[in-house]
């Protein structure tokens, strides 16, 4: 086995046993980037010098037994949507091509204080809007399992980097599935935490009531370790939750005894590719044989999640992205004008890509006079009904199970010209963001030679239940040990 194929926990075990250094791990990662990056295109910026410097510091701390965290020395990739001090943070947009933040996002700061060498900033759909990473202004990231296929999105660069061995772990963000769907399509583990579990300070906002930062990793143990590192209250994000953070690794027991699971019927019915459905059904059957009590549950309102999401998310986006006006940072139009409004309008039309412009337009329309009640308020009310479906389900069940994505990775270009078809990629993941609850995607098999993801959801701040069930399933299988042949 190659060094870059190790999980983060295997890596730190070897470091602890003095068989390996953080610098060697970092060099292995950088060499892997050198070898495959021109095929995969995971990164917008690769930062070898920074990574080497941090790895050297990590080795010093490790040698002195003063390592600040269990993951000290583990090379990490950070999605371009998170502010990194002194390092471009572009959101894969022409609008922010030259933006160098003067501060770190809190989640990033925690990884850097813990001396996780940052190997680079990962590609994404522009401003996190998309499900294929084709909407990047800079490059198309490819799926390491099949280079003609998309890695999913919007955290496609983070997912592809981890799957390809270019980073041991990565951070992504998830507004409607942007961590879980690429994790599923790239055959890795991705967790969207409860809204408020991880600080959003320094996360460039798309839809503030839905956005959440989370880990993309090779297995469930790594996921728990990254969650231990990034979770918790942050005074700089008033919506971050002041709720105690458990040691998530303590919940990786391997047992599902005494737990009950619901399987939402609609998420395993029409609209789900039959081969994906078979894989997920087999995983559910296996969990049942392992002692997880499973039964079907009807959640009448989750069918309305997609229209609700495509009102709320663009509405919030149109408001959040109003800040990009060519004055304080980012792109400014070269059009010569004496009119400030013309300066704004040309800057924004030129700086944003087509999908971002479309969502700003959609959101502006849904919030405009005469349509606010019919669209926006209506969507907020249906959001209540969707959330109530989940509340009721979690009175009875510890977790819910579904596919993560209705299909395996699709071909590059296949849906690029059809924004509506692209949006169907998120039908299983969007309801979770609307309800604010946590959900993970873990590998559960292959269809057409491409990875399939199982989604496990739980109630607010019950990430440990998700990790417990995910770990039990993972340990009974070897999907997470499969690596793409690159």
């Amino acid at each position, binding site marked *: 086995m190659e060094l870059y194929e190790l999980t983060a926990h295997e890596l730190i075990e070897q470091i602890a046993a003095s068989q390996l250094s953080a610098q060697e791990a970092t060099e292995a990662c950088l060499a892997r980037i050198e070898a495959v990056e021109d095929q995969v295109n995971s990164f917008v910026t690769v930062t070898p010098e920074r990574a080497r410097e941090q790895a050297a510091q990590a080795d010093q701390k490790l040698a002195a037994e003063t390592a600040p965290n269990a993951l000290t020395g583990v090379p990490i990739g950070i999605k371009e949507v998170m502010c990194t001090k002194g390092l471009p943070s572009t959101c894969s947009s022409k609008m922010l091509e*030259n933006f*160098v933040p*003067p*501060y770190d996002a809190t989640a990033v700061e925690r990884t850097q204080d813990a001396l996780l060498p940052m190997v680079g900033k990962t590609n994404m759909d522009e401003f996190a809007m998309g499900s294929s990473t084709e909407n990047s202004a800079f490059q198309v990231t490819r799926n390491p399992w099949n280079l003609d296929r998309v890695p999913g999105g919007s955290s496609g660069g983070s997912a592809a980097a981890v799957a390809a061995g270019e980073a041991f772990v990565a951070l992504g963000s998830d507004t409607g599935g942007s961590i879980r769907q690429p994790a599923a399509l790239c055959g890795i583990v991705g967790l969207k935490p*409860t*809204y*408020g579990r991880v600080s959003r300070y320094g996360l460039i906002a798309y839809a503030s*009531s839905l956005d959440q930062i989370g880990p993309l990793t090779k297995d469930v143990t790594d996921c728990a370790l990254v969650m231990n590192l990034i979770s918790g209250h942050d*005074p700089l994000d*008033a*919506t971050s*939750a002041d709720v105690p953070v458990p040691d998530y690794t303590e919940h990786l027991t391997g047992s599902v005894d005494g737990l009950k699971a619901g399987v939402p019927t609609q998420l395993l019915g029409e609209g789900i590719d039959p081969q994906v459905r078979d894989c997920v059904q087999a995983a559910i059957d296996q969990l049942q044989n392992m002692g997880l009590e499973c039964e079907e549950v009807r959640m009448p*309102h989750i069918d*309305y999640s997609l*229209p609700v999401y*495509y*009102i709320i998310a663009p509405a919030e986006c*149109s408001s959040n992205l*109003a800040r990009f*006006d*060519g*004055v*304080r*940072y*980012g*792109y*400014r139009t070269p059009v010569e*004008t*004496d*009119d*400030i*409004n013309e*300066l704004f*309008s*040309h800057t*924004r*039309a030129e700086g944003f890509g*087509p999908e971002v*412009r*479309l969502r700003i*337009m959609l959101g*502006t*329309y849904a919030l*405009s006079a005469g349509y606010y009640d*019919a*669209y926006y308020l*209506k969507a*907020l*009310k*249906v*959001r*209540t*009904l969707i*959330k109530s479906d989940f509340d009721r389900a979690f009175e009875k069940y510890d977790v819910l199970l579904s596919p993560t994505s209705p299909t395996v990775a699709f071909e590059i270009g296949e849906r690029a010209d059809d*924004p*509506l078809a692209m949006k169907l990629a998120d039908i299983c993941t969007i309801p979770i963001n*609307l*309800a604010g*609850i946590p959900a993970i995607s873990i590998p559960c098999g292959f269809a057409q030679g491409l990875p399939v993801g199982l989604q496990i959801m739980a109630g*607010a701040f019950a990430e440990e239940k998700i990790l417990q069930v995910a770990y039990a399933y993972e340990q009974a299988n070897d999907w997470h040990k499969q690596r793409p042949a690159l």
Partner: protein
Amino acid sequence: MPEITPEEVAHVASLAHLALPPEELARVGHELNRILVYFQELEQLNTDDVEITSHAIAMENVYRQDSSRPSLPVEEVIANAPDSADVFFRVPRIVDK
């Protein structure tokens, strides 16, 4: 729900501060109408007695100490400006002489 007209598309673009050329306005109008059809599904649901949810995880009145702390270094902030003078962002004149 009625279709969004080309005039409305142009109006929304002006509200959004997007100077879109005619062919882009046409593309956006077409996509908006496709999506708006989809939104009609929500009309099937009676929501008369339903409260709104703006944030899924309920929180209220998060307080903090009203104490000062250092701001970001002005020169680092201004370094990102497309046009600046000293510690100011430079824009076209917005107040009449």
